[in-house]
């Protein structure tokens, strides 16, 4: 579904339009990437409202700092994903988020579970989930912390009581597994 939308504009065209501040491109960008970025954000922030706030902030930042994107240094999505991840982690550590945790009631949790279940409607995800689950437990633990919980590799090393080099290697191995599954 997302792949189909993406085919409508090539990445260089998208970047050019974005940097010339064409309002139409933001809409295209949103329809192409909002759900992928929301997937990233909502794995770090499980509270639906806060996650959606971060998604909005992410696109605001994409719009406002488009000039800073340099396509020689990486793909557009990587740049956007890192904005989303950084904002998510900032939010996770903010007072705002800690307060909302206290107020979160059962209904919100239920709706969050529903949100999570939505993923299973995407048939491709089943394979990916299975893959991540089939990772060796030590690889899975690192990927969980870094990708799903928004830990830095330094924090993950502390948490798992592992040397930094080992954490880096395990992240690499986990991503290599992902790469294999897509090829």
């Amino acid at each position, binding site marked *: 579904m997302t792949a189909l939308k993406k085919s409508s504009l090539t990445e260089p065209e998208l970047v050019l339009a974005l940097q010339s501040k064409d309002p139409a491109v933001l809409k295209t960008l949103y329809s192409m990437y909002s759900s992928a970025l929301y997937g990233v954000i909502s794995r770090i922030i499980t509270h639906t409202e806060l996650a959606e706030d971060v998604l909005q902030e992410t696109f605001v930042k994409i719009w406002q700092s488009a000039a800073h994107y340099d396509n020689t240094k990486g793909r557009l999505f990587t740049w956007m994903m890192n904005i989303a991840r950084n904002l998510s982690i900032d939010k996770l550590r903010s007072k705002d988020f800690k307060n909302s945790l206290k107020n979160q009631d059962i209904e919100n949790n239920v709706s969050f579970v529903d949100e999570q279940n939505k993923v299973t409607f995407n048939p491709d995800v089943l394979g990916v989930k299975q893959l991540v689950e089939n990772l060796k437990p030590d690889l899975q633990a690192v990927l969980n912390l870094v990708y799903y919980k928004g830990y830095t590799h330094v924090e993950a090393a502390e948490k798992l009581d592992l040397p930094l080099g080992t*954490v880096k290697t395990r992240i*690499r191995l986990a991503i290599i597994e992902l790469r294999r599954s897509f090829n």
Partner: protein
Amino acid sequence: MSVENLKAYIESGVLELYVLGDLSPEETLQVEEMASQNPEVRDEIAAIELAMENYAMQNAIEPSADVETKLFEKLGLQNEDEAETIGSTPQYQEQSRIVRLDNSDGKIRTLRFALVACIALLVVSGIALLITYNKLNAAHDQIASLNLDKQKFAGIVSQLEYENKGLDNMVTMADSKEWATIRMSGQAFSPNSKMNVYWNKKDKSVLINYVAMDLPKTDAQHEYQLWALVNGKPVSLGVFGKTDSATHEALQKMQTIQEAQAFAVTIEPMGGSVNPTMEKLSVMGGV
């Protein structure tokens, strides 16, 4: 950098951390430096990016529709319906925009009606005011002409009262045996004039009646003088004023005369003359 070193660099996992944005600014610069010099590093980064992108795409979760609405509101952008974008959210946006426009249209329409009503009311009020003003003017004119009429009638009434009084006196004197009425007729100076003089046989008093006289008009410097002819000599019996003056009593008493053969009236300068001006002999009548 040697092939072995390059391989070790790639396998250190630093490129994954680079893609995940988990490096310090200095480390990031180092990786970018390596990538610009080594195609292998560049390719490796691209492969990691693609893997993460695919992974994210396939773990996508659709956010609720109002995130997009709020986003475009926040950025102050018009959420235009683009042909290349498909989705239900743009339609929602478009709809809400239309609702807003409708509301403001309705307000404008209401205000327009109000304006038209106000103008209509103003025109009607203006016309009513004009009509009232005209009617008021007509009423003023009417009052003025009625006042004029009233004065005229008052004048007529006092004139009539005056004449009526004179006539009453005439009737009374004509009935009485004591009074002799001497009719004087017009002379060469004014052939159409006439006048009566009333002479009491007992006490010899003389009266004239303004109602019973028709004398030629005098000016401000002249008045009438009544004469009695006694044995061919004129004797003045006094002067009297204009015949049409309503300020006088109808009757005026003149000087008494013991005997007279005739009476006459001349026009003399104000205050009268010792001898009559015969050229202005108006009326004369014998006893």
